[in-house]
């Protein structure tokens, strides 16, 4: 085990933004390619479709589209890869996937909606959130 950790190699940092960008596309493609397996492994046919999950992944990536530091992008990629591995290796359970990427997606949509409604007051934001805030 210790051997394995020592031998594990973190890929070298991207030299420039362009390389980081290419890596992100590469990551997105590999994630999309693994989606049919994910559907099969977690039996998601009755709650989501492949295209929905694909757009979820795209949305997760786009959440970070303002980042320009290649080092930060590399780190986020590393975390994404780790997550992807966990998902594909069935290290998660079905409700994790459903909660995070199927239902959580709705929360994401609401966030986008909230971002649209910039004009509303803090009172209304808190009101939509809960009775106690």
């Amino acid at each position, binding site marked *: 085990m210790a051997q394995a950790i020592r031998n594990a190699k973190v890929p070298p940092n991207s030299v420039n933004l362009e390389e980081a960008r290419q890596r992100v596309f590469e990551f997105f493609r590999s994630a999309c390619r693994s989606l049919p397996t994910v559907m099969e492994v977690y039996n998601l046919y009755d709650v989501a479709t492949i295209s929905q999950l694909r757009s979820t992944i795209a949305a997760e990536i786009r959440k970070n589209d303002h980042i320009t530091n290649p080092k930060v992008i590399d780190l986020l990629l590393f975390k994404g890869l780790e997550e992807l591995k966990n998902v594909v290796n069935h290290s998660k359970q079905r409700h994790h996937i459903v909660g995070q990427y199927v239902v959580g997606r709705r929360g994401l949509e*609401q966030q986008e909606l909230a971002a649209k409604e910039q004009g*509303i*007051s803090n009172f209304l934001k808190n009101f939509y959130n809960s009775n106690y805030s």
Partner: protein
Amino acid sequence: MGLGLLASKAMRPTASRLLNFQNPNNLLLRTIVSKPELRKPEPAAAQPEAPLVDLSPRTPVGGARVHFSNPEDAIEVFVDGFPVKIPKGFSVLQACEVAGVDIPRFCYHSRLSIAGNCRMCLVEVEKSPKPVASCAMPALPGMKIKTDTPVAKKAREGVMEFLLMNHPLDCPICDQGGECDLQDQSMAFGSDRGRFTDMKRSVVDKNLGPLVKTVMTRCIQCTRCVRFASEVAGVQDLGMLGRGSGEEIGTYVEKLMTSELSGNVIDICPVGALTSKPFAFKARNWELKGTETIDVTDAVGSNIRIDSRGPEVLRIVPRLNEDINEEWISDKTRFCYDGLKRQRLNDPMIRGPDGRFKPVNWGDALAVVAEAAHQVKPEEIVGISGKLSDAESMIVLKDFLNRMGSNNVWGEGISENTNADLRSGYIMNTSIAGLEKADAFLLVGTQPRVEAAMVNARIRKTVTSNHAKVGYVGPATDFNYDHQHLGTGPQTLVEIAEGRHPFSKIISNAKHPVIIVGAGIFERKDQDAIFAAIETIAKQGNVVRSDWNGLNVLLLHAAQAAALDLGLVPQSEKSLESAKFVYLMGADDTNIDKIPKDAFVVYQGHHGDKSVYRADVILPAAAFSEKEGTYENTEGCTQQTWPAVPTVGDSRDDWKIIRALSEVAGVRLPYDTIGGVRSRLRNVAPNLAQMDEREPAALPSSLRPTFTQKVDPTPFGVAVENFYMTDAITRASKIMAQCSAMLLKK
């Protein structure tokens, strides 16, 4: 098992041999007292001057204050060597309380007559041969009372032993456990062992109805419940049967206890003989969180404590407030709490084209409501606040509708010609506690027993203590005190006003006459004429003077007084019939058939009650146990509820919903916090900002213009059909349904 039997048993040679065998060193009979000095207590010697303890004034029990009506009547007694001044007529027990010594007691209760049968309050009085029962002994000048001497202690231990003789050892399964007087006092004053070895007696349990659970074996025959029923509740249902060890409490024949105050016997029972049936085996009292709040099921605003565990209200018990409910509450107040768990609305919902409700999020629901409100003309917008609405939400609703351009906003139980201009014309000017002074009552179209049980208890107290005369005008109804049924309709009133009726003499001869008008009259078309007749009676009987205002209105709902203060009065008779957008804020007793078919109806409330069937959008709100809300009771006392449990599901506080809606509708209201709403409330009705204070009306109602309209001869109606089910919460309650099925007279 009587005293003689016990004594003879102790004398039996075998018993004593056995005892001696167990305790060979002791040649005497084994005694039961806990300390050797209590075995043969000598009466305390008359110590002439022994003020060794500090004589600084002590605080009376419970911080009580003594009122001397006549300073010459003060007498001085000594309690444990400490001199106290008390008025003449106080009992020894009361003198001890003034001196700050709490005497153990079971049968004595300050609001009931004195029975003196438990003997727990024995104290030693100098120069008296035996200990005296302090609750029944009047204090005499110079009396030297000893509460802490070996004689008194032994007396208490003895009494305790006798009481525990026949008391079952079922504290682990007893609901009173943890708040039981017998438990506490046996720990404090009892002995650690008993000599009784026989079988304990057992008593058959009685069925007192759906509210009170009885385990009569636990009863110690203090007779508090019997005295409560006959003196305060005014029903002769309970009594004492049998003598000696066969003595038991019961209804003489198989009968339920049909009083609207029956739940109070649970509180006054010092043991677990009478406990709450709905609360049975639900929780232990030390697990509960108490929240001191007020009740909203009627217009009295009884002070209550909500006991909750987690998100669930488990019981409601009264809180002491001498001015409003003393220490009693009605059964509706006490047992309506299970309605807070049933039929609750927990998500905003929109009625789809198929007529079914679909849960949506708050943003969508508010957007739909705002759009619908903008599509109609401002004068077609109508808002109605319900029976249980707090003052904050009512002012926010009024402000919102005013900003939408409509002034059609009113409270339930208020009709278009209700007088909201003079505050003295709709509150109880005498105040509830002030009713005790009265010596003649004229009840007009009100059945206080079902409309406001606590006010009725005050009237009954006055009738029994002052022998006040009661005249009643209205449909035949139940009273639990002597009264004269003068008539059923307004004509009787006219007769009294014109002096043609014998009762007008009673009013004019009375020193403190009281007229109580039921708020059911607000619904009548001829209410101005009726009030004019009442004004005439008041003028002739000198009911309103500078030192006495006996002209009262008894309101029906918790929200009514505040709604009238805020001016929530309908503008015209037909405003509901021509409405296109109706905002019902907890309004369940509005006639929904009057709402036009094409109107858009929003229901904001906490229960899926009557109006939900007509609603197009449901906005879930918080019930009184879940929010901070200002309520004004019928005597004009402003009080506040406090949240005891969290809100259900996705519901929100009432005022917040309307505030959010106003922003979505583009007419944003200028307050964001409850403090902001309250300062707005202070601008409109300053008395609603004075918490826990009764604000008397400034101007007498005689300033009203006079009316010469004829009264309508139709008799007065019944305002409350079913005492147990009057609002959304009580209608959802299972216990209240059982009560109305079993206890209401058919």
